[in-house]
């Protein structure tokens, strides 16, 4: 999985968990006042990515101190979440 694949996975997951009601963009905020996902959908997104990571053979840990400190929050945008997802896949390859 390359960085582009990771981005596509995150965006596809958002489309799926929102039943197509949210059209994700790379810069779409996942947290904060401009967030397009509510907290429930954000949790579902994390679980979806965790399941996909399992299928791909790595652990996606969205709660680790390291992940949080790298970019202050991996949930800032779709891109930052995809970058973290890709980084963790690479680190465990």
């Amino acid at each position: 999985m390359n960085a582009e694949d990771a981005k596509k996975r995150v965006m596809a997951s958002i489309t799926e968990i929102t039943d197509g009601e949210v059209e994700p963009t790379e810069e779409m905020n996942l947290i904060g006042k401009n967030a397009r996902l509510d907290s429930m959908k954000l949790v579902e997104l994390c679980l979806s990515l965790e399941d996909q990571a399992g299928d791909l053979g790595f652990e996606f840990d969205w709660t680790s101190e390291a992940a949080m400190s790298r970019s202050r929050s991996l949930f800032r945008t779709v891109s930052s979440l995809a970058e973290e997802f890709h980084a963790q896949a690479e680190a465990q390859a």
Partner: protein
Amino acid sequence: MIIVTGASRGLGRSVAERLISSGREVLSLSRTSEGVPGDSVTCDVSDYEAVKAVAQSLRKEKREIEGLVNAAGIASMNLAVTTPPSMTQKLIQTNLAGTIHCCQLFAPLMIRKKAGSIINFSTIAVTLGLKGESIYAASKAGVEGFSRAFAREMADFDIRVNCIAPGPIKTDLLKGVSDEQIDAIVAQQILPKLFLPDDVADLCEFLLGPQSQSLSGQVLKVGGA
């Protein structure tokens, strides 16, 4: 499957044994494997990474979790001014942080199913403000506050979160407490009698079952206070 923490002794053990005898599949978590009923995993709930490892293992095995009973806890009867900071830290880390660790790491296993019931343990000392239990009560008051807010967070996923707050219960853990002390506490309950582990197990079965589907964010006080 139902996860029961603190299952090697006291109320945790009684609850685990009851659930097993009722035909429920139970995974017991405790710091020691000795005397633990059912399938068991050694885990110190005050250690976030240890709890995380158990949660990851269950997810990989695709185990379905219906309930979580957070009975792991420690007590210390001391005046606040004579309690060493290490004990304060231990009480907070085990009773409060341990409960939070288990909730935040095992809840995602229930969120996937959009169903589940979580039971956290408080104490009647929170309501009664018992002398000599200030720090213990503080750690459990934290559990109650956390549980009420966590109940709202989990409501979106049809997961219920409630607390049981026992008074003195006839277990081995009461061996170090004098009869006079126990009687004094029991006398302050609305129902002034010493309840048994079975009474707490009854409440656990109720809160884990469909009969309590209308309850979340509540604290059930054993004996009343």
